[in-house]
Structures are given as C-alpha cells and as structure tokens.
C-alpha cells in the first residue's frame, strides 16, 4: 500500500501542484445480526481505493478511484488537478495551509483479540443466546442483536514528505427488545440504542459488554413501559445517564465547535453554529464544573475518534473546549486554524474512507469526570432520571435541541418512585450546560461511540467518541415532545 500511495503522489506531483496528499485505504468489515431467533444480516466486505487531494491554482481538487492500476491512478491524479482548475471559475482567494511537520510513522491501534479470527458461527451463537433471553416473554414482538467489526489500514503520503501508515480496528455490539401491544410501541436497548456501544477495540469489547446478562432486565422494562405513567410536562431537575449525555455532548457541543461550520462552509447542509468567532474565550458555555475536551490521543481512551494522525497528516492532540465553563477552543484544520489565530491545526480532519475528502470532524469530544459521587448526582429532592436515547433533534445553528429517551424514572431523595414512559427534554444548548449542577466521577465515566455521524456533501458518515458520566441539570423543560 505504501507503494500505491507513493505512486499516486508521484503521478499527481507531475501535474504541477502547490500541495498534494494521497490516502490509500484498505477496509475490511463484518456485520452479523439476529432477529427473533434467526440470523438477520450476515455479511462481510472489503474495499480498497485511493483518494487524491491536490491544491493547485489556489483551489482544492479531489478525485478518488477504486481502480488502482497505473492507468486508474494517473487518470484520478489528472482529474484532481482538472477539478482544482475548474474551481478557479468561482474563487475568492487562494487556499493557504498552516505549516505542519513531516512525519514518517507506523501506528496500529490496540486490539487484544482480532475480531476477524472469531468465526461467524460464534458471533451468531453469542447473539442468539441474547435473543433467547429477550424473548422469554411472548410480549416481546421484536428482538434484535448485532455485532460489527471494521479494520481500516490507511497509508497517507503528502508532498511535504510525510508517510504515515495507520491501522485502526473498531468493534461494536448491542441489542434491543420491542413490545407492541394495545396500540403502543415501546422499546428498550442495551448498552445503547441504535446499535449499542462502539469502541476502538477488538473482540475484547464484546466480552467486556457481557450483553446476555442484561437481556432479561431490558425485556422486562420494554414490557413494563406499557403500564408506566406518561412522563409529565413541566420544569424539573433532570438526571441523564452517560450514554444519553454522550449524545447531548455530540449535538450541543461537538457540532457547534466545528470551525468549518462556524466559517460557513457547511451552511447549505449541516448548517452553521451559534459559536461565532467573537464567542471564543468570552462565552459562558457551561457552569463552573463543566470541562470538555476534544482529544484524539490514545491516553483519552479507545474511542471511535482515537488515532495517531488525522487525515491531513497532523498528529493527534488534546484541546480544551470548555474550561471551568468558559468556551476556549474550536476543532480546526490546516486551512482554518489561522481564522482563530492559531499557527497550527489541532488535528481534526477526518474522511469517510478513500472516496471522500477530509472534513473537520469530531474526534473524542468528552465531558471530563466530575467530583460528585453517584449518590450526590442522584440525590436531588425531586428529579426525573432518563436513560438511553430514543430521538434527537437540534436546529441548524445548534441552539434549540430536543431529546427523547427510552425510559425514565421519577426520583425523590435519590430513590426511584415510579417508572415513566415517553420521556423527553428540550432547551437551548448554553442554558442547558449552565444548568449543570453535578457530574459523577471517573469510576462512572464511559467513552461512548457514535458510529453514524453524518456531515458533508456528498455525505460522509464518521465514528466519534464521547466520554461522559451521569450528571444532573437544574430546572430543565421536560415533556414537550408530547405537548399540544
């Protein structure tokens, strides 16, 4: 693959460019799922290709191909330059990149058990054992469980002389139980909804999740929700579990701090951001106990946003985003760093495979653990505790959000007094984070994986990481999803 990357770089350099980088990528995936006692999707795939990005005539051009023959590479290289030339038809200024060092490196993500050595029949046996537990009560009309693995090797080569060989292995697993009866659908999922938990790990993640032991409770809760009270409407203290808080971070902090959104380059699709440049180091984003980082380094944890170098050859870094409640930093790229007075990118450019251009993407955007015990977080006189995301929506500048969860409980003095169905909460991003009054400590902190973050045109899907522990928020609007 190094030869392939270097051949492509050579081909494009001959075209006369200011800068170029090439990513040669080989991806292998496996997906196994079960549904109501049977195999669901059993599939494997491999994909190999090359993406060539050039800066010529002051404009970007990008061409990707799965044809890695000499002719295929040369055609893609020529097309990338031609596309850059076409960009001059509507150019305002030349693209200028922040300087970066040259790196030669090989990095392989930690992986204790190679998931591709585990046979498909063992994957199915694991999932079918969960399925049996979920369907012990016939009221469960749909039991689903899934496992997926991805290994991506990428060789990055650039005209500044970098040659970076990275291999990342990610795994994911989860299950859900759905109960339809009496004109109502209720569903519970574990360890998270929409596929479960995903991390930069091998098969050891599946073992660690101990999925089957949680299946009976999840099925019971899906059935019990049918006889639970409707979540009330009103203003309450809200306690959020760590998986839901991970998505809250993703939507109301992670996306707003993308500097390309702030600068308007995502305006037509994903939207812009309320975090205009004048807000940096001025905005009270959260309460004093809110500390958020964007950290792609391995020491932050095995997140879907963990790597050694980003997709324009910048080393992984950790950046303070919110420090003691103050907004302190954006996610940047080599092209955008100067817009916030930085001399160097903080390494957040990521691409969805060989066929896509790198964009500013979340790495691991995490709420740092707090100093409260779990008892202190849950210790409010009266609060609503919500678990596991069911729906999520936020406006295109990331002010107004609404989340629904699968299940909630009314809490009094730290005790669950009744189960509530169809819970939801809503608000304005900065008001929500300023209402944060308690964050549980490191022992309750989980680095969640969001495998399906969409952005860009053509759309790119990216995995991002979000560390969080259960937290409490004061006077939050609850129940508006069913209002009116």
């Amino acid at each position, binding site marked *: 693959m190094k030869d392939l990357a270097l051949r492509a770089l050579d081909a494009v350099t001959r075209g006369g460019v200011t800068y170029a980088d090439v990513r040669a990528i080989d991806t292998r995936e496996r997906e196994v799922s079960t549904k109501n006692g049977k195999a669901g999707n059993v599939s*494997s795939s491999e994909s190999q290709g090359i993406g060539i990005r050039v800066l010529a005539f002051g404009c970007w051009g990008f061409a990707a191909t799965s044809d890695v023959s000499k002719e295929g590479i040369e055609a893609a290289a020529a*097309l990338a330059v031609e596309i850059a030339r076409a*960009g001059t*038809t509507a150019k305002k200024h030349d693209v200028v990149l922040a300087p970066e060092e040259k790196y030669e490196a090989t990095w392989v993500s930690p992986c204790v058990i190679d998931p591709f050595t585990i046979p498909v029949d063992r994957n199915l046996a694991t999932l079918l054992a969960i399925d049996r537990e979920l369907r012990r009560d016939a009221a469960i009309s749909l039991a689903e469980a899934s496992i997926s693995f991805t290994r991506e090797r990428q060789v990055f080569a650039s005209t500044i002389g970098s040659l970076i060989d990275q291999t990342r292995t990610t795994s994911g697993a989860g299950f859900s139980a759905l109960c339809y009866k009496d004109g109502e659908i209720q569903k519970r999922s574990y360890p998270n909804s929409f596929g479960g938990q995903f991390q930069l790990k091998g098969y050891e993640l599946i073992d660690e999740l101990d999925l089957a032991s949680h299946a009976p409770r999840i099925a019971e809760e899906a059935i019990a929700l049918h006889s639970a009270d409707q979540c009330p409407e009103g203003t309450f203290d809200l306690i959020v579990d760590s998986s839901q808080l991970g998505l809250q971070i993703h939507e109301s902090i992670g996306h707003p701090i993308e500097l390309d959104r702030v600068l308007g380059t995502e305006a*037509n699709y994903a939207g812009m951001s309320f975090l205009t440049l004048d807000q940096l180091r001025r905005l009270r984003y959260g309460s004093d106990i809110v500390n958020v980082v964007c950290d792609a380094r391995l020491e932050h944890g095995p997140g879907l946003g963990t790597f050694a170098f980003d997709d324009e050859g910048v080393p992984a870094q950790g950046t303070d985003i919110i420090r003691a409640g103050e907004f302190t930093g954006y996610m940047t790229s080599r092209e955008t760093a100067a817009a916030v007075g930085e001399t160097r990118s903080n390494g957040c450019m990521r691409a969805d495979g060989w066929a896509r251009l790198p964009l500013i993407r979340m790495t691991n955007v995490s709420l740092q653990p707090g100093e409260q015990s779990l008892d202190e977080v849950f210790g409010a006189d009266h609060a609503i505790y919500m678990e596991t995301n069911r729906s999520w*929506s936020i406006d*295109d500048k990331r002010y*107004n959000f609404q989340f629904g969860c699968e299940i909630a409980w009314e809490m009094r003095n730290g005790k669950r007094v009744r189960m509530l169905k169809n819970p939801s909460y809503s608000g304005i991003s900065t008001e929500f984070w300023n209402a944060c009054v308690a964050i549980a400590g490191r022992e309750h902190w989980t680095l969640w994986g969001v495998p399906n973050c969409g952005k860009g045109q053509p759309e790119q899907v990216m995995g991002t990481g979000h560390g969080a522990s259960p937290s409490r928020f004061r006077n939050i609007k609850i129940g508006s999803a069913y209002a009116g």
Partner: protein
Amino acid sequence: MPVDAAAVHDQVVRAARGQGVDEVEAILATSNQALTRFANNAIHQNVAELSSTLSVRARIDGRTARASTNRLDSDAIRDVVEQAIAITRLTEPDEESLPLAEPAEYRKVDRWSEATAQVTPHERARAVAEAIAAVESAGQTAAGIYSTDANEFTLLNSRGIHAHYRETMARFSITAMADGSSGWAKTSACDHRGMNPLELALSAARKTTQSAAPRELPAGRYTVILEPAAVLDLAGQMFGDFSATAIRDGRSFLNDRIGKQIFGENITIHDDAWHPLQAGAPFDGEGVPRQRLTLVESGVVREIAYCRQAAAKAGVAATGHGFPLPNEYGEAPANIVIAGGDSSVEQMLASTERGILVTRLWYIREVDPYEKIFTGMTRDGTFLVEGGQVTAGVRNFRFNQGLMEMLSNVEALSPAVRASGEETFDMVVPAMKIRGFNFTEVTRF
C-alpha cells in the same frame, strides 16, 4: 471503468460450483459521481469518485450470507465467492428461506442522459459561478452543491435472472444568507438540462430578502403552508412502515390500521416506479419486478409492500420492494407519489388569514413510533402570512407533529412535483395547506 457484468457473473457461478454451491447471486455496481460544492460565494470542495463493487450472495440448504469487494480481478472474484460461501455455511438454516428468484420481465424505464454522464467540472463550475453571482448581487452569501452522478448496476443469479439498470442524476441546491435570514432551494433531475440553477438561486435570494429581520412568534398551533420539500421530508418519514415485515415485527404504525381511514379523504398515495417524475430501478433487491401499489386511497390504507419471503408467509404475491438479502427489514416502497390537487401555493396564501409558510424542515426524528409523531425544525425561509399574503419572516420553530393528524387536516394541495430535500429520498409530492400544525418551541434565529 467499463465492466463486463456477464463475464464477472460467469466467474462467480464457476467459482461457486467449484465449491459445490449451485445457488449464487451477484450484484455488480459501478458509480461515477462528481460534486462541486460552494460556500462563502466561492467553490471550496470539488470532488469526483469512480468505484465498482461486486457483491455475492450464496444460498446453501436454507442458509444465506453476503460478501462484497471492490476489486474485480479474477483472484478477487474467486476470493469473494469463497468468502460468501464460507460465512453462509456458518449461519443457521432458516425454514422460511426461499430459493433464489426466477427470471422475470421488467417494464423498461429510460433514466440515462449521456449528456449528464459527461458533464465536466468546468460545466458545473460555470453554473455555480452564475448562481453565486445572482446571490452576491443581492448583497447575500451563497452556499450549495451541484452534483452529477452516473450509476449502473446488474443483478444476476444462477437461476437466470439478469436485471440491469442505469441512471444519471443531477442535483443542485443553494442556500442564500444575509444577516439574520436565509433562503433555500433544491432540485434534482435525471437529465441535468432539466434543472435551472439560476432560477433556484434567485428564488433562494428572494426568500432571504423577504425574511430579513425575522419576528419572533409564540409557539402554538398554526395553519401552515408546507412547500413540497417540507411535505416530502416530513410525510416521507412514514413509508418504511408500509411493509409487511415491519407489521409482522410490531414496529409499524400500520399495525391494526390497514383498511382503516387514518388520513383525510383528500390523501391518496401510490408507489409507482414508472411515474415520469420518479427515478430508480423497476426491480427489487432480489430481481423481482416492482408492482404499482395504492398505499393510501382517499385516506384509507389499502396496500403494503411484500418482499418474497413476507409474501410467501402471507400467501400473496411479492410486490417487488424487497431489499437485497440477507437483511432484517424486509421491504419498503421506494417510489412515492402523493396525489396533488389543483391549488397553487399563491392560492393557498391568498386563502389564509393568518398562518406560517414553510420552505424547508430539518433534523426530523421520530418521537412516537405508533402515533407517528415527529419532531424537527423549520429552516431557511419561514414566513408569517397575514390577510392572504406574506408579511414578514419569522424565527424558526420546533414542531412535534403526528402524521395521522397532519394528513387529516389538509385543506388544499398543489399539483405534485418531484421534490428533493435532505431528510429522506426524493418523492413526487404536492405543497399542502394544513390547519392546526403543532409548533412547540421557538429558537433564537
């Protein structure tokens, strides 16, 4: 990258037979996609992708699994067949599994424009530059895309199915922005010459001007006029439920509602792959010919989609809406046509004493799967209508709206058009005037 599908299929069948497997299906897809993206009145991302994929499914004694590759040399083809067979042998047999589909006749559709397949980066750039100039001359900032795709795929199986489809598709969308307001427009067409980027740019700019200094109105129930893209992105969320498998799973809102009046009498919906404004193949993921379905007739749910397996279970004929196997979801309609009426948007405005005109909806997610309540936001062109005309732009609303209620409250429909949004696939839908639409919150802009 021309690929001989028949030759690839022969290699697949030979490799499978060499492993003692007779039932094998191959899907060969090639794609040539290009997109010119602009923002801040300049082209900033400009990309092209050329790719091929071979996907092979084996079926052995009621077991099935799929393996895919994008390498098409002989070794890779043999490897992907061996991989498909190896993982198939490790799965559990399913007593409901069916033999591969039999050959069938497909009603032809022509959705290929050679001119669109040959559009160059320079042609896209010129159209983009003209659109930007129009927005810029209004003192506004433009962002958007112009894409042209040429896709081709062939589905073959060892029982003799040879289903081939090719399609070109062009898309143009634009957002015009000024301090405090924005406007948006989008279109798509199989032939790029059917699009008018400049007209869309002018429309987006007009909306931006018209919505300057937006007023904040209280949340509540309003009469709304949803332009076609807004109807598409909201109503389009429900069609995955018109599925026999979804009903069997208990995840469809149509459980216990088939044959019942759940929408107003002015709502009729078909699935029609041959509608002149539609796109997509005339066969499904197993090669079964698509049938035209009457999903909703005068507000009553009439028909749903059946993949082969769901059809066999129900004792009916497959409708040609199945996804490639193996999958958990079964089937879904793919060519939605909501019948229009004879009202124009202008007539809807003129008949509205007080209401909200909505250009576009955004970030739509399901709140309640059985009541089919969705939440989301208005975006890029939300207006107050008073005394029969647009009087001001308004700050964007969050809605929480049940679709059955919404489609029971439709007071007027425009003729149906091909609409393109960002929340679901393109459909043929009308604009709608709807009473009592439920806005629950207001955002800051």
